[in-house]
């Protein structure tokens, strides 16, 4: 089983490096992270925290949008694209289960994403450190940011496979992936915001809203990073929601999402007739 998963993973990783996804994702991540770090360096003095702390706060916001986007871009083609190009049928006639194939691709795609995120956010972090100093707390926050951004990417990789297995064509899968991104990363928050305004500080705001936040992987990612680091919370002004929740809620959500989404992707993939 491991041999077969590794065979798929090695092939997939090779394809991702050959079609330059690895390079593009890394460059994109690095450029955005650097830009945000230095654009956001103005308020440093006034808040009394080091530049790396500010940088981590801005990069958290960046990663909420960019990590899911990159993950979906890598993942949406995984099944639909192969079915369309006719490479899927032959591979599936080998003694390889669909779950193994999915795990192999997931391993390769996660490696690509992890490299892009670690290099991108890491280099911006190092630049902020060199330019404006860093304390042990902010270095820890950066490490947490990188690890959780990879987890967030893992969620959306798996969701991308679901979209890919549901669609008959690569174009359909791309459309579905964009819709997923819009709903989970943008519209969900807007909806919650609207509900908060309507509720005007009532029971919904106190008891339901924090859990709804934790339920969405993108918000769980934000919560985890913000509530874990006081200083980051201070900068991003998002401490309130995190305090209403037990500490395990956001991490649990972010850890469970990839597992459940992968299981769902496998179930949908089982039904695909190439």
């Amino acid at each position: 089983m491991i041999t077969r998963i590794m065979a798929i993973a090695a092939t997939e990783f090779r394809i991702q490096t050959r079609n330059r996804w690895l390079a593009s994702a890394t460059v994109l991540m690095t450029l955005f992270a650097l830009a945000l770090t230095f654009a956001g360096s103005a308020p440093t003095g006034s808040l009394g925290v080091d530049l790396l702390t500010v940088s981590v706060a801005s990069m958290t916001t960046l990663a909420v949008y960019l990590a899911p986007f990159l993950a979906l871009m890598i993942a949406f083609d995984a099944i639909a694209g192969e079915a369309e190009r006719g490479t899927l049928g032959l591979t599936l006639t080998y003694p390889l289960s669909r779950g193994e194939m999915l795990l192999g691709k997931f391993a390769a795609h996660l490696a690509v994403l992890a490299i892009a995120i670690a290099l991108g956010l890491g280099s911006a972090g190092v630049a902020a450190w060199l330019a404006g100093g860093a304390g042990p707390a902010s270095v820890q926050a950066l490490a947490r940011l990188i690890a959780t951004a990879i987890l967030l990417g893992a969620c959306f990789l798996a969701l991308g496979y679901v979209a890919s297995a549901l669609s008959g064509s690569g174009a359909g899968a791309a459309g579905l992936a964009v819709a997923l991104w819009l709903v989970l990363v943008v519209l969900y928050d807007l909806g919650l915001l609207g509900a908060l305004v309507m509720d005007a500080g009532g029971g919904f705001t106190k008891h339901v809203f924090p859990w709804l936040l934790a339920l969405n992987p993108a918000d769980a990612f934000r919560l985890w990073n913000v509530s874990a680091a006081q200083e980051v919370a201070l900068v991003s002004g998002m401490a309130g929601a995190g305090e209403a929740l037990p500490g395990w809620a956001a991490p649990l959500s972010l850890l469970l999402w990839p597992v459940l989404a992968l299981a769902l992707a496998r179930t949908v993939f089982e039904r695909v007739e190439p």
Partner: protein
Amino acid sequence: MTDRDTALAIAGLDKSFGRTQVLGGITLNVAPGERVALLGHNGAGKSTLIKMILGLIRPGAGSIRVAGNAPGSAAARAATAYLPEQVAFHRSLTGREQLTMFARLAGEHPKTVAPLLERVGLALAADGRIGTYSKGMRQRLGLAQALLGRRRVALLDEPTSGLDPISRHDLYAVIDEMAANGTALLIASHALTELEARTDRIAIMAKGRLVADDSLGNLARAAALPTRIRLTAREGAAEAVQAELGGRRVNGRAVELDCTTEQKMAQLARISGLGEAVRDVEMVPPSLEDLYRHYCGENRQ
């Protein structure tokens, strides 16, 4: 019959896509070492049948056993080689990388890859990107992956499409070698040529039904197709020749007659009786194409 006798056993297979029935009541067995040509026009259902044997498409009704296993089970897949109709690979991989992946999936040592590439004539192109390969080269790579390991059943879907005549003969050398190793072969094709005729048995599908399943000799005998006699008459004598022998006028001077094997000598005697009126006689035995058309329910042209 036991599983030892049939590497591939198909019984009463039905399949519909939505409301259209694509396969109906297909029963077909292939023994180890046997080569069976599966013939039929485009849309006859050959590829659908092969995909069902592979477990890629679920059957509507009926049963399939691959070396005694359910189609699509790990054991059945380990026992089956497949060459798809449209061979497609990842463009950005090299032939060697792609074949190595398949070797790993099949549980074969990557060491087996280089000799196989050589075997199908891709040794020189092995480290070039598949995106730069011609259709024939991709077909050869497809054949190479079908040769990985010793499989008990091989399903080749239109393996000669895209191959030049020399490659077609190479292909049949490979097919014979696989059969000699005990692999049961099912070879789909949309035409009956000398190559398909070299198989042990011919199964013909028309509109999702199996309309013939026998050796070429038996099929030819059962069809009892007439031999065609073509006469060229002397100038102005065509009319008289037709009046005497019957048959059809083809153009100004030729007359065509169809006759069975038994009638052949008697007809020739009558023709020579016409003496000077006939300038030339040509005998055209039924071709493989005629035989194929006969079983597909079409008339000879």
